[in-house]
């Protein structure tokens, strides 16, 4: 039973991280495309474009933190 529980926790951690990574990817895809478009018009927007593009990165970080916490709590 204990092994099964640990396995389920691991799956949960994997899902937390993987799904949030996919979500961040989807979000960044559209921002990145728009940022490249804006940069083609005005090159100085590189900095702002880069920053806007990495904003959804937070989603992955939260996923990663949740995964680490899950693993830690399951111990």
């Amino acid at each position: 039973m204990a092994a099964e529980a640990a396995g389920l926790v691991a799956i949960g951690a994997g899902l937390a991280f993987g799904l949030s990574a996919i979500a961040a990817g989807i979000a960044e895809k559209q921002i990145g495309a728009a940022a490249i478009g804006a940069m083609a018009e005005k090159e100085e927007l590189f900095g702002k474009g880069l920053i806007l593009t990495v904003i959804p990165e937070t989603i992955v970080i939260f996923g990663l933190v949740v995964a680490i916490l899950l693993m830690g709590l399951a111990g």
Partner: protein
Amino acid sequence: MLKTKRMSKIQVIGPKKYLAEVIENLHDLGVLHVLDHKKTDDLDIGEPLDVSEKISGLIVNVRSLISQFNLQGTPKLKSFNLDEIETQITELNNKQSQTHDKIKEIETKTSKNNEILNQLELLNSLYLNIETYKPYNNLTYYLGQIKERNDIKKHLSRITQDYKLQVSEYNGKTVIALFIQNKHSEKIEKVLKEYNFSELQIDKVLDLEGPAIHHINKLNIDLEKLYKEKEHLHHDLEKVAKKHKQFLIDVEHYLATEAEKAEAPLRFASTEQVFFVTGFVPKDSFDKTKHALEQATKKKMDLQIKEIGHHEKVPIEFNHTKLVQPFQFFMELFSIPGYREIDPTIFLMLTFPFFFGLMLGDVGYGIVCFILFAILRFKFPKGKQLFNAMIWCAIITIMFGFVFGEFFGYEHISVETGNGVVEALHLPLHVEELMYHGEPTGEYVYQFPRLMNRLHGEITILGNTLPLILIIGGLLGILHVNIGLFLGFINELNHSLKLAILAKGAWWILQTGAVLLVLSALNIITLPIWIGGIVIVLAAIMLGFGEGIQGLVEIPGIFTNILSYFRLGAVGLASVGLAIVVNENLAGPFFEKGGWFILIGILIFIAGHTINIALGVIGPFLHSIRLHYVEFFGKFYKGGGMKYIPFGQKEQ
């Protein structure tokens, strides 16, 4: 340090007589950020100085020469006499255009001769003298190429036996010359059509006589001469270009500067007798400016300090020591600060490398980054600022590497491997038994000294065991966000104390409320839960007054902002994780096999760590800068300043 350079808004009024001198002096000083005058009904803009037209004309000529000669180089600062420039440039231009015309002429000749040569070669391949192709009274000839030569004679002899046919190969095609009596021409044309006959022109050579080969030889000699002549001319041009290269580049720079001066009055206001210049000078350059202008006009001018309007845009010049300057790059990348707010560059200088180092935190990686950025700094002088900042980051990375005791992802080194090195260098490493999930494994290693273990360091909060590094990230987040709020508070103080408390102070009340709520809910303090709730509601009301709807919407934002700092730990854990995978799972097994496998192991080790360093630079860089731009600046920074571009500023 905390504010950009203070500026004085000045207005210079002087008689037009001294306009040129004033411009000259302002340009040399290079401190006045000129505010362009917009034409109004009362006050027109000035007219360019008289020399402007001449300069514009010259500059067009010089630039055309530079582009014709394809010149590049760095200009030296030099003074020239306009008349002298004019004579020299005209001379150069004439020479250039003459040579160019000659080359054109030769090219026309060459292409004509080539055409003749082609036609001659065609005739030569048919072994008939050129005069054979003169028009006849009762004969017609066909000269051209056909698809194939098979059976053509048979077809012709069906019409007549009385013909002359020459067939040969020319340029890989079958060509024929067919002479026939006029009366057969219709039938012959039908036959030729079946052979896809297409006529070839020899119109250029019909006035020649004799065998074609004689003319070919002569023509080839002619062509050779033309080519040589052309080459010679090109060589001449190159010599001229080389000789006058620096002169042209210097002149172009000089003229561009003079043109800027000559056209400056277009940016000034002007009446028939006087001109007005309005602009900003840094406060510490004001006396210098005043003195220079008084000298230039023999005190026949008026210099006033104007009051800067409450919402007027003032040009921004950073005011930092050499240490902080590299970080201006990040401000310019985002948006330069406004005149009335705090310039946070110094905070970037303090926390950006700190966050970067905390995330990467590895002695080995730090050293590699340091060398890499030091090389890049010298290779690309344009990116000097950025690379200087990154060198700081690398140094902090090495420091955190020692804090975490990590070297290329290794936390310890096994006794067998490390014995020789440790003893030879007298390294103060102590031997420890390796533990796995709290159980001794019987394996002994040299542990690297450290203040905390990033990967396994844990902290128990309320009975939950949590990774210590994440908690450190969160705590840094609380600190950083609150510094941001504090800066915002000071910015708002410029407007009013009331606004500062309502818009920024309320966030602290909100945080206090949240802490009270959580602590009382967990029974750590004996306080009814609703007290925390009331404090939060109070803060929300204040925010509603201070920042409006936007403030209310952002209430949960402050907590996600703080949570966002967990990345300080998480990104680092991911980086160590990858390094350990490279060391233990990818390269490790090869090292253990020994022999030739060690070589493969080393290759994998290098490749793996190269990738991890690349990720480890990009990741922490973006995350660190983003924490500043989004979480930190979001609390106080408005930006949108106008860059200070003084008149006559030397190009960098």
